């Protein structure tokens, strides 16, 4: 584990260096991320000020959902950025070179790339989240914080499972871009409390990409609105997803034809 972490650090450093050399684009990306966050925040603030709440949640709670969405989404984007580059690696045949390295075969597709700009925005976002939750008394005490940490880690585990699953599909079909973006669109639905969705949309965010588990559960856990059986179920679901994704990944590797190499 320690060895993998060292390799990850070296890989991350190599990915970050070009971003730091060309500081202009990096600044534009960071500026874009900040502007997007602020405008969404302003929008939500204005709408909630006009309407006072949503789906039975107070304005502050709705904003907490929004902050936790940003926190989970940005952390997952920061850690598992590799899938966005994986199609090119498979299509060029360069994936062969990764398979002969003494690393887990899924290292490159999932962890092979990080987004430093996400990390830079993650730090103040995390600070703001703690401040906001504290000032508005949005935590159900130490139990709520503990439940949030467990559910947040469970979300990251599920995020890993899902990205690995998409990588496996990429090995089999070379299709990845649209699947990743559908995942992003569905997770973006959790900017707002997922209780507002019904019918087909509710089905999608519960069973196709369990956004409810990914983002709504940590928020509800912090607010003390989730029973312990649901928290345990959520953790088991994430572990089960990782096992299934690993099995599917191994299956995809057996079908890998090493085209172009």
């Amino acid at each position: 584990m320690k060895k993998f972490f060292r390799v990850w650090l070296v890989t991350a450093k190599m990915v970050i260096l070009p971003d730091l050399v060309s500081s202009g684009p990096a600044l534009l990306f960071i500026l874009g991320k900040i502007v997007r966050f602020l405008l969404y925040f302003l929008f939500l603030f204005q709408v909630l000020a006009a309407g006072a709440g949503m789906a039975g949640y107070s304005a502050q709670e709705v904003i907490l959902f929004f902050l936790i969405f940003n926190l989970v989404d940005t952390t997952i984007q920061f850690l598992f950025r590799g899938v966005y580059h994986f199609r090119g690696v498979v299509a060029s045949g360069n994936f062969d070179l990764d398979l002969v390295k003494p690393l887990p075969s899924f290292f490159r597709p999932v962890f092979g790339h990080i987004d430093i700009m996400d990390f830079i925005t993650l730090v103040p976002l995390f600070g703001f989240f703690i401040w906001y939750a504290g000032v508005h008394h949005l935590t159900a005490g130490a139990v709520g914080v503990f439940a949030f940490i467990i559910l947040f880690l469970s979300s990251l585990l599920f995020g890993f499972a899902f990205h690995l699953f998409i990588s496996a599909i990429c090995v089999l079909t070379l299709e990845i871009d649209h699947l990743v973006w559908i995942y992003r669109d569905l997770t973006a639905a959790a900017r707002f409390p997922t209780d507002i969705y019904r019918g087909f949309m509710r089905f999608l965010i519960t069973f196709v990409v369990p956004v409810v588990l990914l983002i709504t559960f940590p928020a509800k856990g912090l607010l003390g609105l989730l029973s312990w059986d649901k928290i345990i179920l959520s953790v088991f679901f994430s572990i089960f997803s990782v096992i299934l994704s690993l099995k599917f990944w191994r299956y995809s590797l057996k079908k890998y034809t090493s085209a172009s190499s």
Partner: protein
Amino acid sequence: MKKYWLIFKLTLEEYFVYRLNFFLWRFRNIISFLVLFFFWEAVYQGKGEIFGYQKEQMLTYIVGVSFLKALVLGSGTADFAGMIKSGEIVGRFLLKPWRVVVVLFFRDLPAKILDVTFAFLEIFVVARIINLPIFWQKNLSTLFLFILVIATAFLTYFAISFLLSLIAFWVDNVWAPRWLFGVIFLEFFSGAFFPLDVLPKTLVNLINLTPFPYLVYFPIKIYLGKIPIFDIIRILFLMFFWLLALFYLVSFVWKKGLKVYSGYGG
């Protein structure tokens, strides 16, 4: 002209080759629409009017966003930056007997036609399923002005997108400025996510100084009959101003860009 129609035909055929991509792209649009629909449904729970919009008008606004995203926003010119960087523009454009802008325009047309057709079908089906109340504009002069405004908006976006791609003549990383101006600013300031009336007045006044709100926000407000006829004429003049200014800028930047272009890789 015949060669440009051939490009139109070939591009259309191209879309039918990559059917899965097209299907997934359309699926994403349905998701975006449903997210906005449920959001506003929840906001309007037990309320009559918010930010000057009745619920029916707000839901029509998001339907309008879906159509205008298909018709106005989105252009193949975004790929042009990559062609500049790879040197592909030499073989594909500069050595061929055609005008680059016209070729790109005729490559955009089939995408728009397909997107709008499918957006119509999807919204029709989804509207029937979720029983969506839609405001139908019956005033013919307003409808005529609406069509005129979206035609201008279509060309304006084409110019903005092409201009952003031309940055590739000077910088290596084109994706960063395109993402900031062509995605983030565009999405928020054009009103493609929410009507600008939601934002504070001072910020809206600043946004109105850019060409973005003329792409989605004003066209839909015109359709909804929320802008008096005198103001529509004023908006049209401003749109024509932006259109001319942007096409002049495109022509200027294109000429300057070609002078510095070394075409490595071409």
